[in-house]
């Protein structure tokens, strides 16, 4: 191929519409959001206020500095202090613990002095991710393995499993809002009744699952932090819905991963006398790891982006216990018309997502086997 002027013009002309749209509505907004966040901005632009909104969200700048600096030091220690002598290793571990401790203290300070609503939203998001992702991945791993082993009916099951993922979430979330209603005749209560579960408040229950368990054992006196330290019943209901939606998608991805493993690897292992568990550990797991990594990455980003179904499934009874960060940000825009504060919050969320993706890449990504 030559790179004549005509070809270059053609190439850029072909890309122009997409680049225009992506530039104006995908990249430019980040800079614009920062600009907005530095002003007082409700419907129209107000006076310049500098970092006031970040101050309101994150609290004392000293704590922020402590947190960021200690995290930076921690990374520096990890990458620069190397060596095998005992001294170096002890120093290294000591420095790591000290910097992490300082970062933790900084984070606690930030949480203590910042916007409590924002940190509640981050807490809910973390609960949501921690409850949903492991369960989602484990179930889809089992299902993909079963589908892989199944001799016939693969296509049929795959279509069925995929149905919850393709069906518009606006419709299924509305349905699950009624399935998880506190009425004794609701589907969730009927199914729970089969397993001996009493009538529950489900999406309308703001108390944590742990305090509900305590209550079932007639313990009515429990410290208040029990409700704050565990996900609410309402959030667990949302998590169950989330698992129902995404298991099918993960299964299809993992099934493709399983099917891509050359069968002669297993034959060779069988000849060498490997047990089923051994060939799973040493063949299946390493070769499926890219697909596992991909779905866990998508799942983490997905929980931080989650909006539609949570917005539909939030109830007055659940109070703020299902409001993830994106819902809290949307409230700032739609309910309070505080565009500047919403812009500041959304940039904080963006930074957190970037940081998490980076950490996930470093920690999990290292264990991923891409072949040789």
């Amino acid at each position, binding site marked *: 191929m030559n790179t004549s002027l005509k070809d270059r013009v053609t190439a850029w002309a072909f890309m122009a519409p*997409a680049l225009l749209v992506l530039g104006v509505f995908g990249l430019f907004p980040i800079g614009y959001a920062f600009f907005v966040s530095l002003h007082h901005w409700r419907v129209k632009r107000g006076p310049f206020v500098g970092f006031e909104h970040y101050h309101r969200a994150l609290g004392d700048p000293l704590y922020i500095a402590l947190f960021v600096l200690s995290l930076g030091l921690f990374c520096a220690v990890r990458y620069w202090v190397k060596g095998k002598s005992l001294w170096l290793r002890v120093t290294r571990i000591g420095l790591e613990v000290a910097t992490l401790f300082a970062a933790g203290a900084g984070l606690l300070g930030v949480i203590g002095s910042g916007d409590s609503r924002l940190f509640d939203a981050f807490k809910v998001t973390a609960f949501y991710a921690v409850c949903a992702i492991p369960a989602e991945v484990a179930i889809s791993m089992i*299902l993909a393995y079963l589908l892989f082993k199944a001799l016939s009916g693969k296509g049929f099951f795959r279509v069925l499993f995929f149905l919850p993922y393709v*069906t518009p979430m606006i419709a299924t979330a509305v349905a699950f809002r009624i399935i998880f209603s506190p009425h004794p005749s609701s589907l969730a209560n009927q199914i729970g009744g089969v397993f001996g579960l009493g009538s529950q408040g489900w999406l309308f229950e703001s108390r944590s699952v742990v305090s509900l368990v305590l209550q079932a054992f007639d313990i009515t006196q429990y410290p208040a932090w029990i409700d704050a330290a565990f996900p609410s019943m309402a959030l667990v209901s949302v998590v169950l819905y989330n698992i129902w939606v995404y298991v099918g998608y993960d299964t299809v991805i993992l099934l493709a991963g399983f099917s891509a493993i050359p069968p002669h690897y297993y034959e060779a292992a069988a000849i060498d006398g490997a047990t089923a568990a051994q060939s799973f550990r040493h063949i299946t797991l390493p070769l499926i790891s890219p697909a596992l990594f991909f779905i866990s990455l998508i799942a983490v980003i997905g929980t931080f982006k989650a909006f539609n179904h949570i917005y539909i499934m939030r109830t007055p009874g659940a109070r703020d216990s299902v409001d993830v960060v994106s819902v809290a940000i949307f409230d700032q825009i739609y309910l309070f018309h505080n565009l500047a504060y919403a812009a500041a919050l959304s940039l904080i969320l963006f930074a957190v997502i970037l940081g998490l993706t980076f950490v996930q890449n470093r920690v999990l990504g290292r264990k991923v086997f891409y072949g040789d």
Partner: protein
Amino acid sequence: MVTDTAEGAGTGRGSRADGPAAETEDARGSIADTAAQRAAKRRLAAFLTYGGLVVAAVAASFPFVWMLFTSFMTRGETLRYVVVPASVEWRNYVRAWSEANFALYFSNSLLIAAVQVGGTLLFSLMAAYPLARMQFRGRETIFLIILATLMVPETATMVPNFLTVAWLHSHSPIPWLNSWPALTVPFMASAFSIFLLRQFMRGLPGELWDAARLDGAGHVRFLFQIALPLCRAPLLTVGMFTFIGSWNALGWPLLVTSTQTWRPISVALLRFVEEAGAETQLQMAGAVIATLPVLLLYALIQKEFTAGISVSGMKG
């Protein structure tokens, strides 16, 4: 497998005491035994496999069945412990359709989705082509920049995009707010679509282009007459994703539509659920209506779609 070997060793030890003749007979017997056992084991494995799959299939599909059943119930039945309605109440659908003005929102959503899918397919195909098959300076940089937009969460773009659209509304000849441009244009190019189409087009054989050029075709004709028909599967995947995304959009339409004229079905369903409160059967009728177009599309292109998803996952 472990038990097989253990048993084989056991019979071997027993037969040594009985002499060579018995050994062969025993060995034959043990082979028959293990064959029968293997068959039993295979049956058990198949039973467990299909048992697990059927349980999962029921869990995946039961909420849909429940949705459908509930949409046919009378108001009384929804409040009692009823799973299957005594008679089919078609009137629920008529009521949901007319009372909630679903006809308008349904056609709004269809129009919005059509514009968005059409725009996305055209723009993404055009952008993916030079990225996959032409040589020019800055190609890799541009591709990386496009991929970087995948990291930006929608909430981060919401405020500035709203302001941009409001500005365009007052500075362009056509209205943007409360109309289709605000609902479709910002989503007309997606990094994911461009990525998927580029990956696919890179796989097309180079001889096609050589042959086309010999016949006097330029890039435009090659793209639309030769490459386009070959990209059927990834285009369907991208189209389906765009359609679902458009049909599902909730937060953005809430911001940019304050009147009914262009309100999509997602917003209408949310309002309907908030207002129709206790009328579960009507809500479910509305929800079923809202799922129909997507399910219909999925039924039509199910094969290409699942194949496309698998590919997108494999390539990361």
